[in-house]
Protein backbone atom coordinates (compact mmCIF):
# COMPACT_ATOMS: atom_id res chain seq x y z
CA UNK A 1 0.00 0.00 0.00
CA UNK A 2 1.00 3.59 -0.52
CA UNK A 3 2.23 5.71 2.36
CA UNK A 4 3.37 9.29 2.66
CA UNK A 5 5.89 10.47 5.21
CA UNK A 6 6.47 14.03 6.27
CA UNK A 7 8.90 15.38 8.84
CA UNK A 8 9.49 16.94 11.23
CA UNK A 9 6.11 17.07 12.95
CA UNK A 10 6.86 20.36 14.66
CA UNK A 11 9.52 22.97 14.12
CA UNK A 12 10.36 26.27 15.78
CA UNK A 13 12.72 28.44 13.80
CA UNK A 14 14.00 32.00 14.26
CA UNK A 15 13.26 34.70 11.73
CA UNK A 16 15.91 34.76 9.02
CA UNK A 17 16.91 31.12 9.41
CA UNK A 18 16.69 28.60 6.54
CA UNK A 19 14.01 25.93 6.22
CA UNK A 20 13.90 22.45 4.74
CA UNK A 21 10.85 20.22 5.04
CA UNK A 22 10.92 16.82 3.44
CA UNK A 23 8.16 14.59 2.13
CA UNK A 24 8.53 11.09 0.72
CA UNK A 25 6.04 8.67 -0.77
CA UNK A 26 6.31 4.89 -0.73
CA UNK A 27 4.48 2.19 -2.61
CA UNK A 28 3.90 4.08 -5.83
CA UNK A 29 5.89 5.56 -8.68
CA UNK A 30 5.66 8.77 -10.70
CA UNK A 31 3.20 10.43 -8.32
CA UNK A 32 2.01 14.01 -8.46
CA UNK A 33 3.27 15.78 -5.34
CA UNK A 34 1.94 18.85 -3.56
CA UNK A 35 2.75 21.28 -0.77
CA UNK A 36 -0.12 23.03 1.00
CA UNK A 37 -0.09 25.56 3.81
CA UNK A 38 -2.80 26.05 6.39
CA UNK A 39 -2.89 29.05 8.71
CA UNK A 40 -4.49 28.49 12.11
CA UNK A 41 -8.27 28.12 11.77
CA UNK A 42 -8.13 28.64 8.02
CA UNK A 43 -8.44 26.66 4.82
CA UNK A 44 -5.71 25.01 2.77
CA UNK A 45 -3.67 26.94 0.26
CA UNK A 46 -1.82 25.13 -2.51
CA UNK A 47 1.78 26.35 -2.65
CA UNK A 48 3.53 24.06 -5.13
CA UNK A 49 2.85 20.97 -7.15
CA UNK A 50 5.04 18.68 -9.20
CA UNK A 51 4.16 16.17 -11.90
CA UNK A 52 7.71 14.78 -12.21
CA UNK A 53 11.35 15.06 -11.23
CA UNK A 54 12.58 18.62 -11.52
CA UNK A 55 9.12 19.90 -12.55
CA UNK A 56 7.73 22.44 -10.08
CA UNK A 57 4.71 24.70 -10.46
CA UNK A 58 4.29 27.57 -8.04
CA UNK A 59 0.76 28.63 -7.22
CA UNK A 60 1.43 31.77 -5.20
CA UNK A 61 4.37 34.17 -4.96
CA UNK A 62 6.12 33.76 -1.65
CA UNK A 63 9.28 33.35 0.34
CA UNK A 64 9.37 29.61 -0.26
CA UNK A 65 10.63 27.27 -2.96
CA UNK A 66 10.18 23.59 -3.72
CA UNK A 67 12.32 20.94 -5.31
CA UNK A 68 11.85 17.37 -6.44
CA UNK A 69 15.27 15.73 -6.62
CA UNK A 70 13.89 12.18 -6.80
CA UNK A 71 10.67 10.65 -8.06
CA UNK A 72 9.12 10.21 -4.63
CA UNK A 73 10.77 13.06 -2.73
CA UNK A 74 9.45 16.58 -2.44
CA UNK A 75 11.24 19.29 -0.46
CA UNK A 76 9.97 22.67 0.70
CA UNK A 77 12.65 25.25 1.41
CA UNK A 78 13.32 28.80 2.37
CA UNK A 79 16.60 30.71 2.55
CA UNK A 80 15.32 33.17 5.17
CA UNK A 81 12.12 32.58 7.11
CA UNK A 82 9.63 35.35 7.81
CA UNK A 83 7.16 35.52 10.68
CA UNK A 84 4.37 35.15 8.11
CA UNK A 85 5.74 31.73 7.10
CA UNK A 86 4.35 30.23 10.29
CA UNK A 87 1.65 27.67 9.66
CA UNK A 88 0.77 24.02 9.18
CA UNK A 89 2.47 22.60 6.09
CA UNK A 90 1.01 19.58 4.43
CA UNK A 91 2.44 17.38 1.73
CA UNK A 92 0.11 15.34 -0.48
CA UNK A 93 0.40 12.91 -3.36
CA UNK A 94 -1.88 11.66 -6.09
CA UNK A 95 -1.66 9.01 -8.77
CA UNK A 96 -1.77 9.96 -12.42
CA UNK A 97 -4.09 7.06 -13.20
CA UNK A 98 -7.34 6.41 -11.42
CA UNK A 99 -6.00 3.53 -9.38
CA UNK A 100 -8.22 4.31 -6.45
CA UNK A 101 -11.58 5.97 -6.17
CA UNK A 102 -9.94 9.32 -5.67
CA UNK A 103 -6.64 8.90 -7.50
CA UNK A 104 -5.18 8.35 -4.04
CA UNK A 105 -5.08 12.06 -3.27
CA UNK A 106 -3.67 11.62 0.23
CA UNK A 107 -2.12 13.98 2.74
CA UNK A 108 0.78 13.52 5.08
CA UNK A 109 0.51 14.21 8.79
CA UNK A 110 1.82 17.76 8.47
CA UNK A 111 4.56 19.94 9.94
CA UNK A 112 3.62 22.72 12.31
CA UNK A 113 6.13 25.53 11.74
CA UNK A 114 6.43 28.40 14.16
CA UNK A 115 8.72 31.24 13.19
CA UNK A 116 9.80 33.30 16.20
Amino acid at each position, binding site marked *: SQTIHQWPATLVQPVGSPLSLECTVEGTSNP*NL*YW*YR*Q*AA*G*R*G*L*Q*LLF*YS*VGIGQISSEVPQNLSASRPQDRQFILSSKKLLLSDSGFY*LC*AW*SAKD*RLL*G*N*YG*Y*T*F*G*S*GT*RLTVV
Partner: protein
Amino acid sequence: GESVGLHLPTLSVQEGDNSIINCAYSNSASDYFIWYKQESGKGPQFIIDIRSNMDKRQGQRVTVLLNKTVKHLSLQIAATQPGDSAVYFCAETRGYQKVTFGTGTKLQVIP
Protein backbone atom coordinates in the same frame (compact mmCIF):
# COMPACT_ATOMS: atom_id res chain seq x y z
CA GLY B 1 -12.27 29.60 -5.63
CA GLU B 2 -10.24 29.33 -2.49
CA SER B 3 -11.33 31.12 0.65
CA VAL B 4 -8.25 30.42 2.66
CA GLY B 5 -8.40 33.70 4.55
CA LEU B 6 -11.83 33.32 6.12
CA HIS B 7 -12.58 32.19 9.64
CA LEU B 8 -14.20 28.79 9.68
CA PRO B 9 -17.99 28.71 10.22
CA THR B 10 -19.17 26.32 12.91
CA LEU B 11 -22.04 23.85 12.86
CA SER B 12 -23.20 22.40 16.18
CA VAL B 13 -25.23 19.20 16.05
CA GLN B 14 -26.70 16.97 18.75
CA GLU B 15 -25.29 13.45 18.85
CA GLY B 16 -27.55 11.13 16.88
CA ASP B 17 -28.95 13.85 14.66
CA ASN B 18 -28.11 14.21 10.99
CA SER B 19 -25.60 16.85 9.91
CA ILE B 20 -25.66 18.78 6.68
CA ILE B 21 -22.58 20.73 5.65
CA ASN B 22 -22.87 23.00 2.65
CA CYS B 23 -20.36 24.35 0.18
CA ALA B 24 -20.44 26.60 -2.87
CA TYR B 25 -17.96 26.09 -5.67
CA SER B 26 -16.94 28.34 -8.52
CA ASN B 27 -15.21 26.35 -11.24
CA SER B 28 -17.65 24.93 -13.77
CA ALA B 29 -14.81 22.98 -15.39
CA SER B 30 -14.22 20.81 -12.32
CA ASP B 31 -14.98 17.15 -12.93
CA TYR B 32 -14.73 15.86 -9.38
CA PHE B 33 -15.93 17.31 -6.12
CA ILE B 34 -14.57 16.00 -2.88
CA TRP B 35 -15.16 16.13 0.85
CA TYR B 36 -12.28 15.90 3.32
CA LYS B 37 -12.33 15.58 7.10
CA GLN B 38 -9.55 17.16 9.13
CA GLU B 39 -9.14 16.37 12.81
CA SER B 40 -7.15 18.72 14.99
CA GLY B 41 -3.42 18.59 14.29
CA LYS B 42 -3.76 16.09 11.46
CA GLY B 43 -3.80 16.16 7.68
CA PRO B 44 -7.12 16.04 5.82
CA GLN B 45 -8.59 12.63 5.14
CA PHE B 46 -10.64 11.76 2.07
CA ILE B 47 -14.29 11.02 2.83
CA ILE B 48 -16.07 10.78 -0.48
CA ASP B 49 -16.01 12.24 -3.96
CA ILE B 50 -18.58 12.71 -6.66
CA ARG B 51 -18.11 13.02 -10.37
CA SER B 52 -19.63 16.06 -12.04
CA ASN B 53 -22.05 13.95 -14.10
CA MET B 54 -23.69 12.64 -10.93
CA ASP B 55 -26.00 14.40 -8.49
CA LYS B 56 -25.85 12.02 -5.56
CA ARG B 57 -23.44 9.51 -4.13
CA GLN B 58 -23.69 7.53 -0.91
CA GLY B 59 -21.01 6.11 1.31
CA GLN B 60 -21.00 4.70 4.79
CA ARG B 61 -23.21 7.09 6.81
CA VAL B 62 -22.41 9.90 4.36
CA THR B 63 -24.18 11.22 1.30
CA VAL B 64 -22.89 13.88 -1.06
CA LEU B 65 -25.30 15.91 -3.16
CA LEU B 66 -24.23 17.99 -6.14
CA ASN B 67 -26.36 20.72 -7.67
CA LYS B 68 -24.55 22.01 -10.73
CA THR B 69 -27.24 24.52 -11.55
CA VAL B 70 -26.47 26.59 -8.47
CA LYS B 71 -22.90 25.28 -8.00
CA HIS B 72 -23.67 23.81 -4.63
CA LEU B 73 -22.29 20.77 -2.87
CA SER B 74 -23.44 19.27 0.41
CA LEU B 75 -22.32 16.52 2.75
CA GLN B 76 -24.88 14.75 4.86
CA ILE B 77 -23.75 12.70 7.83
CA ALA B 78 -26.32 10.35 9.29
CA ALA B 79 -26.58 9.72 13.03
CA THR B 80 -23.71 12.07 13.88
CA GLN B 81 -21.27 10.72 16.44
CA PRO B 82 -18.68 12.46 18.68
CA GLY B 83 -15.94 11.07 16.44
CA ASP B 84 -17.37 13.09 13.57
CA SER B 85 -16.25 16.32 15.25
CA ALA B 86 -13.71 17.85 12.91
CA VAL B 87 -13.29 20.46 10.20
CA TYR B 88 -14.84 19.45 6.89
CA PHE B 89 -13.54 20.83 3.61
CA CYS B 90 -15.13 20.68 0.23
CA ALA B 91 -12.78 20.65 -2.71
CA GLU B 92 -12.88 20.62 -6.47
CA THR B 93 -10.54 19.32 -9.11
CA ARG B 94 -10.18 18.78 -12.78
CA GLY B 95 -8.69 15.36 -13.27
CA TYR B 96 -7.25 15.28 -9.75
CA GLN B 97 -4.00 16.83 -10.96
CA LYS B 98 -4.44 19.39 -8.22
CA VAL B 99 -7.21 19.91 -5.73
CA THR B 100 -8.48 23.32 -4.71
CA PHE B 101 -10.05 23.57 -1.29
CA GLY B 102 -13.01 25.66 -0.29
CA THR B 103 -13.81 27.19 3.05
CA GLY B 104 -13.95 24.59 5.80
CA THR B 105 -16.76 24.09 8.29
CA LYS B 106 -16.12 23.09 11.86
CA LEU B 107 -18.56 20.43 13.02
CA GLN B 108 -19.12 20.24 16.77
CA VAL B 109 -21.07 17.25 18.05
CA ILE B 110 -22.87 17.85 21.31
CA PRO B 111 -23.08 14.69 23.46
